[in-house]
């Protein structure tokens, strides 16, 4: 009953029954209850959250491990490769739409709700609210200094753009079959990503400690931290993806024709890069 029968020419690989999906669902159910419990300060919240994450990690290792094993056994033909490419493209599109919701919220607040709260219609309620951006809003009295664009954020932009270049060099090295070069440039990309994340952490500490800029600093704090926070989370995922790919490169996986995982991680990395450029312009510069 070998699964390989499916991957004969003209056939499509259909995996055998797998326990990982139901393990993942169990993890998410426990995680959801854990999150609900934690947020409502119930005693079982944190333990449930921890158990949920633990099961989730087991599932991720197991599932991706199975996929890597199948890939290395060359069960995925050309057609499966194309399916993977379609699916990764659509997944990235869904991520774009997720960020669009938060960019939209920032735009709406800046262009509409804040000016509206400062308009003549709201003068009776908030007589002293001027509506200048950035703002905590009319009723939160906790002044902050916004994050300047040309310090760490500009440096971070340079870091991410450079990481795009190093990743492309790694890609070309792979296509040329130069594994040593591939590993070095891929590692450089991961390093740049980690430095970016380190700077973000430093920036957050700086914001909280010195600028009094917090998640609770009204609409500016909300949009600033949610946008940069979700971006940072996605960079973290990208770093993890690239690290897995790096380990696989060091183990001799991939060649010039068979390297979908590398390209998927690269696409994802370019996506977080582009999101950052959007953030740099509309969150930091404008």
């Amino acid at each position, binding site marked *: *009953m*070998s*699964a390989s*029968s*499916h991957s004969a020419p003209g*056939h*499509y690989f*259909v995996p*055998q*029954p*797998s*326990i*990982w*999906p*139901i393990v993942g*669902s169990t993890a*998410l*159910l426990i995680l*959801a*209850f854990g*999150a*609900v419990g934690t*947020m409502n300060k119930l005693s079982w919240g944190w333990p449930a959250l921890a158990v949920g994450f633990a099961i989730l990690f087991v599932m991720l290792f197991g*599932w991706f491990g199975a996929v890597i094993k199948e890939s290395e056994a060359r069960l995925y033909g050309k*057609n499966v490769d194309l*399916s993977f490419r*379609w*699916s990764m493209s*659509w*997944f990235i*599109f*869904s*991520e774009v*739409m*997720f*960020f*669009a*919701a938060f960019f*939209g*919220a920032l735009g*709406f*607040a800046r262009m*509409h*709700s*804040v000016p*509206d*709260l400062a308009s003549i219609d709201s003068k009776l309620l908030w007589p002293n609210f001027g509506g200048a951006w950035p703002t*905590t*809003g*009319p*009723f*939160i009295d906790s002044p902050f200094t916004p994050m300047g664009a040309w310090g760490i954020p500009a440096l971070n932009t340079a870091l991410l753009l450079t990481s795009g270049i190093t990743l492309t060099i790694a890609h070309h090295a792979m296509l040329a079959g130069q594994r040593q070069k591939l590993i070095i440039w891929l590692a450089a990309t991961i390093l740049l990503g980690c430095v970016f994340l380190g700077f973000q952490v430093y920036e957050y500490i700086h914001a909280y400690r010195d600028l009094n800029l917090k*998640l*609770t600093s*009204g*609409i*500016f704090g*909300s*949009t600033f931290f*949610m946008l940069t926070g979700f971006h940072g989370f996605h960079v973290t995922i990208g770093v993890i993806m690239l690290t897995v790919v790096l380990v696989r490169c060091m183990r001799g996986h991939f060649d010039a024709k068979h390297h979908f995982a590398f390209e998927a991680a690269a696409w994802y990395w370019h996506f977080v890069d582009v999101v950052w450029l959007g953030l740099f312009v509309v969150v930091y510069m404008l």
Partner: protein
Amino acid sequence: MASVPHDHGHDHSHDDHHPTGLMRYFTTTNHKDIGSMYMWFSFVMFISGGIMALLIRSELFQPGLQILEPERFNQLTTLHGIVMIFGAIMPAFVGFANWMLPLQLGAPDMAFARMNNWSFWLLPPAAILLIGSFFVPGGAAAGGWTLYPPLSIQAGMGMDMMIFAIHIMGASSIMGSINIITTILNMRAPGMTMMKMPMFAWTWLITAFLLIATMPVLAGAVTMLLTDRHFGTTFFNAAGGGDPVMFQHIFWFFGHPEVYIIALPAFGVVSQIIPTFSRKPLFGYVSMVYATASIAILSFIVWAHHMYTTGLPVAGQLYFMYATMLIAVPTAAKIFNWLATMWRGSITLETPMLFCLGFLFLFTMGGFTGLVLSLTPVDIQLHDTYYVVAHFHYVMVAGALFSAFAAVYYWGPKWTGWMYEEKHGKIHFWWSLIAFNITFFPQHFLGLAGMPRRIPDYNMQFTEWNQVSSIGAFAFGIAQLYFIWIVIRMIRGKSGIRAAAKPWDGAEGLEWTVPSPAPYHTFETPPIVK
């Protein structure tokens, strides 16, 4: 169309090797198993949401408060909406897609069979969160299925469970949609060009695109709710420079395409069945494809017609009014194409066709009341009245649900290998049709007379029509128990009539070239489409 439905030759010795019992369903990577699970889940949710609806209708049988606390009433209206949309209607059509798309396209399975399993198995946890939220302190979410702040920000932990349920269902929808799109784009049999695909595949392709584009936006919206509730952000709080109306904009950017996420696969089913029982090819196939795509594109730019009473600028109201009315054009193209398909056809009225005709009449009515509601000045009068409730139940129940019934009767013989009993199917149709209209037609009158929705009590003057509506609702509910009885009898072969590979003489398509019931594995060698 030549095909090799199931070649037992060479190295296919693995055939039906799969775990048995519960483990078969926990671990399955078979599109037919997964499609069936989607449908059973959908039916369980349909009954759950139906019980909620009947509790609502029981309370509304008389003015005054009889059986429900107002808080509980609000929880029931909220959960009824969410459970029916995300738990009943959407999974039903994903179930049809799972079963039928590989058969219609000549593919061995869905493109990502393991992820397909996860898409399904994410739904029960979401259902546990939703139904379970009735039993936590403060009860379930009670701000209406649209989850508007500030109510949703003030609510108890039931709202958090709702938010995480939506996250999980969103993940399920996105994975399912990626799977469907990839299957359609990459796994069609040789010769099956895009413009030769069955309409059901086309409508699902476009629906899946809508889902991928809008579910993440909903996820973003509920995430903002969550952080506003627990982490001190002020997205929807004017004191912090935010705006509760902003939630409505983000929500309806998801919410309006969601209407078509529900309607388009229903259109696809109807586009399969009407040609079969008219014994004519679908009239205007190409225009059907373009109309479907136009509806999908327009659905992204009309969202604020749900928000006429929020103080939009007049220019905005006018824009959204005209843009909304534009949707009537491609929708009418579809209706006329279906009529033209039937024109001078050799029509027979088996149950699937009856449900499609019911769909045509009643969905069109729902479309017309939609047109009425698109008019800003009229909507300002009718907003949040029972007229709106009547309108969307005409498109959701008589539209999507009727076409789901049609699909079960139409493809059921392919799934089970047995015919249903025609007499029972017909009774189910007429019973549903009449009960549906008794339930929802009077709600137009109630709305026009000014009865507000989502309120457990009402003025005496509304009593009679509410009583009619409640009686109709119970009749409709019983009809659906009758439906499941018919389906179980079909599964058990009580009709005594085995289904042929092609039980409908007018049917076209690859799905009818495989035996009934369809074997566990089909099209392992792709058929050639001429």
